[in-house]
């Protein structure tokens, strides 16, 4: 049962999205006009898709600052921003916060349903953290056969998330026995990206003591 939240002060934005998406009886849709309200609701129950109208601005929070809060609290669900064509600058800012797409006003029913389908596809994919856990396990139990495939998966994580420490850590684990020097390099890179990364620190210390 997909849960969809909409944040907008404009009745025509929220009503239109609701009318379009409620045609599927499985969908449950709630609309809000205040960022504080919607933040509370998100803490209660995370949606499968969130529409944020960038024009919203009540109290201290506006559309962009809501996105900022969501990122800091590490909320990880698909977000789509709604904007009028005059505010391309706002859209650019929004994309720094990992929104999956933007929709400009006026929007068509097809645009909304396409974005909905895209969001549902994304929700089916494992999250980043789940991927990391899964790969770590596989490295522990790896044998010669799945080396190449494992290595490819780790490398694809590098490409997608160049500024995160975990891919370097995973690669270090992968290379630990094959090439300790490379492993150490990667652990150091990982710690450079996040000095508080405990697991990397532990493995690095262990390897340096064994030298």
């Amino acid at each position, binding site marked *: 049962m997909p849960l969809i939240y909409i944040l907008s002060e404009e009745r*025509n934005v929220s009503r239109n999205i609701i009318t379009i998406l409620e045609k599927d009886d499985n969908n449950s849709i709630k609309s809000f006009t205040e960022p504080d309200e919607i933040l509370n609701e998100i803490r209660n129950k995370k949606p499968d898709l969130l529409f944020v109208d960038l024009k919203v601005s009540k109290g201290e929070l506006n559309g962009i600052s809501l996105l900022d809060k969501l990122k800091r609290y590490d909320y990880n669900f698909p977000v789509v921003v709604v904007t009028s064509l005059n505010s391309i600058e706002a859209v650019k800012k929004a994309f720094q916060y990992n929104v999956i797409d933007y929709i400009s006003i006026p929007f068509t029913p097809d645009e909304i349903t396409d974005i909905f389908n895209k969001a549902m596809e994304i929700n089916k994919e494992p999250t980043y953290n789940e991927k990391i856990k899964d790969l770590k396990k596989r490295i522990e139990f790896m044998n010669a056969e799945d080396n190449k495939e494992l290595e490819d998966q780790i490398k694809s994580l590098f490409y997608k998330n160049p500024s995160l420490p975990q891919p370097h850590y995973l690669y270090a684990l992968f290379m630990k026995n094959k090439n300790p020097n490379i492993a150490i390099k990667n652990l150091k890179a990982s710690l450079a990206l996040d000095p508080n990364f405990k697991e990397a620190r532990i493995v690095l210390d262990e390897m340096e003591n064994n030298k």
Partner: protein
Amino acid sequence: MNFKNPFKKSFYYVVFGCGRLGSIIANELSAKGHSVVVIDRDENSFENLSFDFTGFTLVGEANEIEQMKEAKIEKANGVFVLTPDDNTNIMIALTVKKYFNVDNVIARVYNPKNIKTFAKHKIEIVCPTMLASNRLKKFISKGEKE
């Protein structure tokens, strides 16, 4: 998406002109649950829209291509051309059909003689003058029979 009833799908309509007729049509489309965009050069004309109207409004010159692109006209399921001026309606209707390739276009044309201009291009027309005269002719016939 699984539509329980596929015929309940929302369509996307563009209405040029928010006068008496334009606003009636826009209100009707919105009430039926469709997405509507209404374009008019005078923002006061949007006051003709009902309180429940949930469509979008754009202020601008209806016959400008830039305005039509902003309204995403190429994605429209149907277009109503209802400005007060016949020639403007003819040009908008032809532009929408031939340049933006939208098939379902209907335009209001007051002057019955202008209907010929459309005939070749297969654009639907509503001519209030003709509709009224047909109705009045029936009234006359009715009177003659009595």
